[in-house]
């Protein structure tokens, strides 16, 4: 995952980039979106761009060979001035490098196949809740280069404002403790699943960060992790407080710790920000030499599909 050189960027945009790889949901609204570019790797400082046709965009990409290319989740009447906001996709950013729990040994800020796959599974979980509970159907996955974006374009949610979007983040991530944890469906179920997933990823070192947790209690919890997980999955959280050494206060602190971790599996600011720009599917993520691409079947996503040709040629 080495940085792409200017020559490699040129090669990518002249030989490999294809307008057919732009998702329909962007292609059909191209002229209503703001485009942003990072031309030299210093950040997306070239904002307020509008393209009336895909050919204009292609020409820009081929001539300027940007380091990174972004497009707004918002549609505007005047994208080049960011004026006349019409509506915005509901977007989630699940970045493998920022996952609060990872089973790999990646250095901070790095990613590997393992944590990218973990990000993929989180994206699938989120999308399932959006579909099953929120009744959303037009859910698109994009491999961003270091993780996944979920971009929802159901009309019913595109005009929602920040407060409602913040509530969606809470629901999808399971970052609010429900009043009844044992209901079979609805948020109660979502919460149990998220809590179990997070608890499953805990080890002694991470548990030691919970305030008030004694070492002996941590060891006991880890030794009986399956029993604890079973209790969470059944919604019998009170069984956790029956573990020796876990009083009501410590139990509450554990719960709050896990809930906070739940909220960190996605960057909530991205979802709430209706004017955010996200990496353009089909473009090159030069920092890691990977293609940002629409993923049609998230269950079968393979990292190789996102490797540009020039990376294969590097060895020759």
């Amino acid at each position, binding site marked *: 995952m080495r940085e792409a050189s200017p020559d490699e960027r040129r090669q990518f945009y002249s030989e490999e980039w294809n307008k057919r790889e732009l998702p329909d949901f962007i292609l059909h609204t191209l002229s209503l979106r703001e485009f942003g570019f990072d031309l030299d790797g210093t950040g997306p400082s070239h904002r307020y761009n509008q393209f009336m046709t895909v050919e204009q965009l292609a020409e820009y990409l081929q001539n300027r060979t940007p380091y990174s290319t972004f497009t707004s989740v918002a549609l505007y009447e005047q994208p080049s001035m960011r004026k006349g906001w019409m509506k915005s996709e509901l977007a989630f950013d699940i970045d493998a490098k920022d996952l609060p729990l990872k089973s790999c040994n990646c250095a901070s800020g790095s990613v590997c196949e393992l944590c990218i796959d973990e990000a993929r599974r989180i994206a699938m979980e989120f999308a399932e809740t959006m579909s099953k509970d929120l009744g959303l159907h037009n859910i698109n996955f994009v491999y961003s280069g270091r993780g996944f974006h979920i971009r929802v374009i159901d009309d019913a949610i595109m005009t929602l404002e920040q407060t409602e979007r913040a509530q969606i983040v809470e629901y999808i991530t399971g970052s609010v403790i429900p*009043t009844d944890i044992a209901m079979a469906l609805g948020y109660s179920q979502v919460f149990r699943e998220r809590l179990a997933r997070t608890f499953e990823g805990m080890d002694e070192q991470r548990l030691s960060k919970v305030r008030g947790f004694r070492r002996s209690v941590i060891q006991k919890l880890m030794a009986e992790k399956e029993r604890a997980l079973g209790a969470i999955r059944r919604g019998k959280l009170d069984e956790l407080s029956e573990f020796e050494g876990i009083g009501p206060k410590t139990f509450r602190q554990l719960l709050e710790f896990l809930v906070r971790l739940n909220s960190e599996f996605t960057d909530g600011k991205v979802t709430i920000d209706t004017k955010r720009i996200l990496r353009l599917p089909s473009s090159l993520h030069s920092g890691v030499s990977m293609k940002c691409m629409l993923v049609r079947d998230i269950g079968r996503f393979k990292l190789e599909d996102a490797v540009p040709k020039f990376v294969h040629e590097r060895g020759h």
Partner: protein
Amino acid sequence: MIAPEYVATLDPFVAEAKRLVETSPPLDSMPQEIVDRAIARVKWASREMVVEPNAEAIRADVLSFYLMCQGVAAVSYPYSREARLISEATKETIKYRMYDLFKRGHEESCLDVVKRSLKLVQLEGGDGAKLGGIEIPREDFYKIRDRRLAQDGIETIDDRLLPQYLPRYAVRWTDLAPLLRHRRAELTRLYLVNGRAVITPRDLWDLFSNFIAVRTEEYVASVYERFSDVGAPSKRLAEVGERISSLLPPELGLPERFARVPMGKLRLEFFPPCVKIAMGGVGPGLRNYAITVLLTSFLSYARASPSGRAATRIGDFITDISVVRDEIAAPIFEAAERCKPPFFKDQPQEKGNIYYHLGFGMTTEPRLEDSGISKWYRVPNCSKIQMSAPPLCDPDELCRKIKNPLTYYFRKLSEQAMSGVGG
């Protein structure tokens, strides 16, 4: 059988209600009994809320509702305590009326009104436990009931009341967006299946009455904006507003919903884009409008949050002149200094003009007792700003829903207060 116009008593924003208002004399010339009813609405209890199903009673109800709203808009500002008082009173009224209609066997009439605003379906199956082919587990079904009973503080219930607590409908959650936005509903507290929230009749009354309460607050905001356009409201409206304002409970021990939202230090983070641009300093050609017209009126009305009487003198709402000097004029002068060229460098007389626009006459040394010497200019509406100073207008999504920069500010403050996040 319920008269078709009766829908206006459940939803005063339906076309039938608007027609009633349009075919009546102006609100500020209403007879005394309508005026009294507009004020009494705030204090109504149970049966007082019910309207007789005859044309005259329905008309009186609708007119008094609009008079109440316009009166409040005349003496306060969007999302003020007064606005909250009447929106809460309206919520209780609508809820009671729905309860009453259900009790008298008019559920269908009630649902017809609700369906105009919310996409509502009945749960399927003889025992009402299926939604779009998805079975709602029995345990969940009864938990929804028990949760609602607990919410109402009911431990034992008789057969007559029980049906109100059993899940019977499902409503599309996206239709509840206005309630989520104002934190009158929480997504994680809804029982969501396939895009719909499963609810009991009790929940329905709550949701729908809250829905009307939100629309009431929005209506007050829109009337306030209209007054900004056409000038001061009539004396009659101001009198109604003052009488309603006098019914506000004292600030101490206020229920959360009536708590004063905006009074206090200015919160820059909630300023609308146009004000933020003006605060950053602007170039020649824009300076006069940005500083003297927009910032001066915006900061003064936002800080003083005038309520309880028609806003004609800032001195009626502020007791210490240092508020004017330090919290209103100082940031205006700083913004003027940031202009290119600095505003007062080539136009020093404009400093006095700032105080003139605040109502202190042409001076640079304002005194509280001089308040009212000149006019206290209201905040221009967005359309005027767009016309007079287009570069100041860089609307975001909230701007699309308001017509005056002050509404933007008070709405943001209100949302923040409802979210329970401290400042």
